[in-house]
């Protein structure tokens, strides 16, 4: 890729607004490279500082319920079966069988071929507009590696949308990104966004997975975040959960800074989803603090912040039970999904 490349990119309203009508690979690259850099030590220090907040009593109780309502309850295994997905959906609908005051999770996240099963299992409770509704999110675009032709990736997306997915979690082409081919990454996101459109012209929400563990540097994460937003992503998501490190507090903090800056620039709010590796209430509360103090409390809603997690839910439920009963329950007092 050279700066002199002037291949026109697919139309993307946001990018044209910000970068200008002469949107080319060269201008996109210049824009991304012109972003202020990130100091890794300073970023980690700020994350540690946010992580040291002491969230107690009423604030903790509120935070635990909020965390549940922000979870994308996830199963992404080669061994997923219809039975496993139905079990996951049941858990999503009734997180704590011993305490019906528990909120429901935001969504279930499955592979594309399981969307129909999940949809059927949710029945009347499917979709954020249903009372107590739960969205169905599908990973797509040759998840997790993203190593397939664009045609295959788009077919993957279209299948999931056709099957009723409310949300699409796509992966970016990290190979193209690391090769400096930002235009290719951009075009793919734009094309996937187009494929998210339903016959009624509405769109499935698009979450763009950066796979920050493979991008390696915070400067790369920052550029990829801007790139994903410019190309039309509704959410930026850290990881597939298949690569270590997955979500970390510093990397999520950085992405929160990007969406805060995007809002500062355009007035538009983009969502953030850390995924993978967040297993305890204690960790999840640190993320809530970071969201509230960096992006703002208005981000603490399911349309702007999600946790991609599977084991987190039960830890939160145990903490919740501790608050209501005064003692810690054994793990057998929460259901496995």
């Amino acid at each position, binding site marked *: 890729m050279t700066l002199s490349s002037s291949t026109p990119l697919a139309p993307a309203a946001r990018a044209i607004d910000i970068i200008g009508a002469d949107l080319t690979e060269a201008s996109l690259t210049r824009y991304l490279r012109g972003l*202020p850099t*990130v100091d890794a*030590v300073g970023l980690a220090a700020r994350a540690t500082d946010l992580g*040291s*907040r002491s969230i107690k009593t009423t*604030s903790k109780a*509120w935070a635990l319920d909020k965390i549940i309502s922000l979870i994308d309850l996830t199963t992404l295994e080669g061994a997923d079966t219809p039975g496993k997905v139905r079990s996951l959906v049941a858990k999503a609908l009734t997180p704590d069988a011993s305490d019906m005051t528990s909120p429901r999770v935001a969504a279930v996240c499955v592979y594309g071929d399981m969307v129909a099963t999940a949809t059927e299992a949710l029945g009347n409770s499917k979709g954020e507009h249903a009372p107590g509704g739960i969205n169905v999110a599908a990973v797509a675009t040759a998840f997790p590696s993203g190593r397939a032709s664009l045609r295959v990736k788009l077919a993957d997306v279209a299948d999931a949308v056709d099957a009723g997915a409310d949300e699409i979690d796509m992966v970016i082409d990290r190979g193209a990104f690391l090769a400096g081919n930002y235009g290719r990454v951009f075009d793919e996101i734009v094309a996937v966004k187009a494929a998210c459109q339903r016959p009624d012209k509405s769109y499935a929400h698009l979450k763009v997975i950066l796979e920050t563990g493979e991008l390696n540097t915070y400067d790369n994460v920052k550029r990829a975040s801007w790139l994903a937003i410019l190309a039309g992503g509704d959410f930026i998501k850290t990881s597939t959960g298949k690569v270590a490190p997955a979500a970390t507090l510093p990397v999520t903090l950085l992405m929160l800074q990007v969406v805060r800056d995007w809002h500062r620039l355009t007035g538009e709010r983009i969502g953030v989803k850390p995924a993978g590796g967040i297993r305890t209430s204690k960790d999840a509360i640190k993320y809530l603090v970071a969201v509230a103090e960096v992006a703002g*409390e208005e981000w*603490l809603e399911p349309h702007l912040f999600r946790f991609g997690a599977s084991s987190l839910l039960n830890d939160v439920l145990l903490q919740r039970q501790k608050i209501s009963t005064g003692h810690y329950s054994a793990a057998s007092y929460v259901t496995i999904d």
Partner: protein
Amino acid sequence: MTSTNGTTSNTPPAGQKSSFLDYAPAPESTAILNLKSEYGLFINGEFVDGHGTSFTTISPSTEKTIATISAADASDVDAAVKAARRAFDRSWSTISGRERGKYLFRIARLLQERAREFAVAESLDNGKPIKESRDVDVPLAAAWFFYYAGWADKLDHAGLGANPRALGVAGQVIPWNFPLLMLAWKIAPALAAGNTVVLKPAETTPLTALLFAEVVQQAGLPAGVVNILTGAGATGQALVTHPDVNKVAFTGSTAVGRLIARQIAGTDKRVTLELGGKAANIVFDDAPMDEAIEGIVNGIFFNQGHVCCAGSRLLVQENIHDEVVDRLKARLTTLRIGDPLDKNTDIGAINSAAQLERIRALSKVGEDEGAVRWSAPCDLPEKGFWFAPTIFTNVSTSHRIAREEVFGPVLSVLSFRTPEEAIAKANNTPYGLSAGIWSDKGSRVLAVADKLRAGVIWANTFNKFDPASPFGGFKESGYGREGGRHGLAAYLAPAESRPYAAPAIQAAAVEPVAIETPVADADPQTPTKFVRRKGANK
């Protein structure tokens, strides 16, 4: 959500929609602290009553009295110096460096074991937030003792040649901004080098020094090696001018530093002074923006700006000036001001009514001189001494708020166009303690750092301290270095010299300095080794 003691400002007014950000109070318990209602002077290993007029120390966040404190008069100072001299002659200068190191390691470990207690006491007495005393002051104080404990048996490598000698009795006067940490900066190198000390903590913050006296007892330090005298300026003056004090170490204001220099001029006392500052924090347009904002905040609002090396002058490249100020204001509105003992408090109380008055007066001058004042919107508690984080824009180099040390949470923002101008403006101050540089370009950082006349320069960070790193100032910020090998050397003399320039005719009468006497080492496993007996001239 209700506040436990009325000083937390984050509680929303009744009826207002509560917010997650109004974190429920998370106060650190004071139950761990066993304070006495009265504290005497710590002389010769024991607490004794002082002969001066006792005073009380209050908590600046509530104005409640914590304890009654003895004041040392000239006779108490004399008793303490005599005790230190005796300890120097009879025990401390005669034991091996390794033995001294063991005592220092023991003190360091005790500080760690009692860390929570010290943190609570420090926040109570000083007003600084518990997260700072817990995460910075106390761990660093312990680190200082650990570091210098390691030096105690390696004095040959302190840079003064073989067998350097201790100076004798050190008279040390410390400020109220980092009471325990400054104590560690003073006592650890002095003891490691083989000196004994008489230390006077600040009048408003004597508590942790007195707790430290308990640690000294606990560690079994020989009586008189560490003496703590509480009192006001007169006590400090009596201490530094005492004829039998060989070394004076002072941290505090430039005005008092000048006075001390004048008072001890013509004597052979060694002196190190760590005085005021008006540090420039230089932000170039290629700086990592979010981290620079954090660094600016940390630079000036850490410890309520009661930091001699605070980055109180923000020099920001003009092409990013407005953006930096906007982002800074947004960040400052998220700072949490209130009860220092709440674990979520970012900014605590101003240490004293007098200091609050000074900050208010200088801020008023800033407004009068035409600078634009902006203070973070926050409800300040009614009781106690509080000042909202404040920034002044439209500040020019001639304004008093750009020249004088405010020693409070007040930032002056100036702009520059080129690196050359940044350097010139940064150096355009009578002070020279510290400076910060924010840039992504390593070569620029090094080139600018090379030309800044400041003792400590931070690149892409601020207010970072390490016992291995020397700290001290240029110009009116003082002389001498604390920390690292240099900080150790400040308490040592080369083998040939002696603390007193005694007349030659008398010199023959005193115990010769260079004689080496075999002394049995405390550890029977090691062979007897030669330990130098220092001539005390007494």
